[in-house]
């Protein structure tokens, strides 16, 4: 019998949701790979190898995103309503980029595909660039805040106008911090994409592809790095949305720094995460290794967890409103009822089982690398 108190369940569910979110950021290797297509694959064979390798995994980030949305809906419905309804355009554009991705692998090479294969490749690029960038911008608002008020019935009103137009969430992409987080995620996804492709394709017949993948692992990392540094240093020094004992929200200097110090396990996770990403990149770039993805991937999951948990715990509002501080959402005022969270916790017992078979099948399918023969053997996208 699960008999946890309400606050514990609320915290547990934020952690579960954050794990799903962090896994999504790791699985964005598919999105990163999509943006690399032009740069790393120069021949038809290389292109087919890259697309086929990514195509076997595209449903993973997609499904994880859907689960992330579902988990937020079930566990934090007030966030779901406020953010999706309020920051309307940023979410709509993210969704749009995933809609066009979903058909692209299947349709790109099929005869009579109506739009032509380059359009489907463009769809993949948009998904990997604009889609991931906006996801970063949306996550950034956990730190920078949004422009909404909630009434007595928790109905959301959004107010941010530019030239007389209410931007409804699109303004998230105009903040330097949010944008930097977005750009970091785009290039980190490219790092992961290149590392994944190094791991999944048998590159013996395409040495040029291999050297380009190694080069782009390093280049993308170099571009991602300054944005990461900017994001992390901003987090350390920026004001944060503190919730006091009476539930009053106020802006407090160096709030996230004090959160890190108050939760040293997050600090450790962050440092280990960054080091793992770095180690993976060095392995892939300079050591000729094919296993860099596992280190950088795990590192990304750790960093993602910290980014999502840091603004939610230690009396912090995770979805703050700049416009009306007292409308800000915390994991305690935005969650489902005690009963629903308990039921959902029973459901969550299934997560390790699902993760288990996903990993098992992934290993089974990838135990043999993708070869030239495989893709010429009609098993390709």
């Amino acid at each position, binding site marked *: 019998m699960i008999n946890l108190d309400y606050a514990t369940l609320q915290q547990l569910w934020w952690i579960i949701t954050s794990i799903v979110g962090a896994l999504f950021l790791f699985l964005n290797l598919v999105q990163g790979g999509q943006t690399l297509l032009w740069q790393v694959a120069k021949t038809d064979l290389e292109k087919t190898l890259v697309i086929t390798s990514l195509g076997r995994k595209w*449903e*993973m980030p997609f*499904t994880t*995103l*859907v*689960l992330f*949305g*579902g*988990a937020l*809906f*079930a*566990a934090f*419905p*007030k966030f*779901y*309503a*406020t*953010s*999706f*309804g*309020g920051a*309307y355009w940023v*979410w*709509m554009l993210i*969704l749009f980029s*995933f*809609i066009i991705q*979903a*058909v692209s692998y*299947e*349709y790109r090479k*099929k*005869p*009579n*595909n*109506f*739009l032509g294969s380059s359009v489907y490749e463009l769809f993949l690029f948009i998904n990997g660039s604009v889609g991931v960038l906006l996801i970063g911008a949306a996550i950034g608002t956990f730190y920078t805040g949004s422009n909404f008020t909630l009434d*007595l*019935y*928790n*109905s*959301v009103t*959004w107010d941010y106008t530019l030239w007389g137009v*209410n931007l*409804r969430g699109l303004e998230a992409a105009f903040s330097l911090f949010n944008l930097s987080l977005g750009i970091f995620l785009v290039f980190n996804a490219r790092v992961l994409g290149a590392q994944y492709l190094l791991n999944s394709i048998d590159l013996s017949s395409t040495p040029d592809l291999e050297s380009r993948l190694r080069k782009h692992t390093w280049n993308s990392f170099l571009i991602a790095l300054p944005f990461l540094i900017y994001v992390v240093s901003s987090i350390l020094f920026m004001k944060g949305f503190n919730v006091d004992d009476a539930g009053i929200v106020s802006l407090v200097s160096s709030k996230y720094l004090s959160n890190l110090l108050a939760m040293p396990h997050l600090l450790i996770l962050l440092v280990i995460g960054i080091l793992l990403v770095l180690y993976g990149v060095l392995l892939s770039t300079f050591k000729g290794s094919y296993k860099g993805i596992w280190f950088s991937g795990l590192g990304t999951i750790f960093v993602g967890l910290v980014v999502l948990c840091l603004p939610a715990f230690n009396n912090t509002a995770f979805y703050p409103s700049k416009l009306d501080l007292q409308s800000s959402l915390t994991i305690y005022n935005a969650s*489902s*009822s005690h*009963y*629903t969270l308990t039921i*959902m916790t029973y*459901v969550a017992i*299934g997560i390790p089982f*699902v993760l288990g*078979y*996903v990993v098992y*099948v992934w290993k*089974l*399918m990838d135990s*043999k690398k993708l070869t030239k023969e495989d893709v010429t053997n009609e*098993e390709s996208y």
Partner: protein
Amino acid sequence: MDFDLTMVNWARAQFAFTAMYHWIFVPLTLGLSFLCAFFESIYVRTGSKEWKSITKFWMTLFGINFAIGVATGIILEFQFGTNWSNYSWIVGDIFGAPLAIEGLFAFFLEATFFAVMFFGWNRVSKKFHLFSTWMVAIGSNLSAVWILVANGWMQHPVGMAFNPETARFEMQNFFEVVFNPVAVSKFVHTSSSGFLFASLFVLTISCWYLIKGRHLQMARRSIIVASVFGLLSSSFVAFSGDESAYAVAQKQPMKLAAIEGLYKGEAKAGIVAAGILRSDKQPGDGQDPFLVKIKIPFMLSLLANRSFTSFVPGIDDLVYGNEEQGIESTASKITKGKTAVNDLAAFKQAQKENNLPKAALALARFKENQDYMGYGYLDAPEEAVPPVAIPYYAFHIMVALGTFFPVLFAAFLFYAIKNSLTRKSLKKYLLPLGLISGFLGLMAQESGWVVAEVGRQPWAIYGLLPVKASTTTLSAGNVQMTFFMFFVVFTLLLAAEISIMLKQISIGPEGGPLK
């Protein structure tokens, strides 16, 4: 209360449009996944290359359809948040759970094993591949379970209570939500009708080959499997359809009255087999709603209450009340509802002012009428009536087609077993009928959802929350823009899907024609 009805209607249109598009592909996924599993099971048992080729052919079409099904599906989940954020907040405590469970237990099953199904032929054992195909079929249908639990709950909300403190509905009993009788009959009806539709799809393409004189062997074998599956599914569709109608009669009497065009309730009510509605008919105007009709006596009473002589309320009874039958008028419900809405507002205001005695008083008053709260958002009793003609015609189209399909399957099975499908007389009548049957199936599919969703208007949560009170506070222009954005993209993708599908069908199974 002021509602931006332009926005509400655009949001309605967007939901209807995206859901109907999504539903072109979903029933095919539900059924074709099982058909692929059947074909592959036969292949694994017999080891015959031809069955493998048949399996792979149908799997290719399955994959093309699956991709666009996924693409059109993601927007539906998130649309609850973007366009219907009041809804998401007010019922998220109950409604979110099935969606999360669907993602966790169904979508991952589909996504994981889909990759094996398409790319695992040379990577995993024959048995594991077959297992994966079955898992995709089970995963697809599990997703239908959870989404229909969610939809069933909207049609007949159970297992929850309104919490005035949070001003939302909160779950009290998960099992009541999952085993909601409306959800159960809905799932059986919807998934079996998906099997039926997929069988018709196979029939359509096989008939095309037969007419063209190509791949005759594959067409015949496919028809045998599809007809058996279609016949079995038809019986489930009929059985669960009756069960659904009974559930509608018990839980959503207004919807039943609308789909039957029944304005004046009666005992020993007959069912309308066919009829044309009078276009200017209004509730309470006393006109005969039908210009012409054919009625089967007693059958509606039987369908609705499982008794030939029982009383079935009509629209007029439900709107204006019927004392004799103990039916309260909608006007009275609206009055109570408005009182409840005001008392809730007074309660929230008193709480904000920290005036506890005043809050307690308002709360006590609110509780007297809280069950009627949803009616408080309606302006006139007639607003509780759905647009009758749409669900009426949709229902009759669905039922007529649903009655015709088993006859069609039986005929095809008969001639396929006799191996005389290519006989000249059949080419003239039966094969063309088979050729269009897929389109008829799609029509029945969409009609079914029109009955379910238009028939329950104006409610998002039946009797508790009207659609117009469920939306996001958002200007209509935003919703219009996203509507057209999805309209253009979905239409382009549909065109691509059809074009690719037709090409693959004309290419036929790999490895050349089967004799």
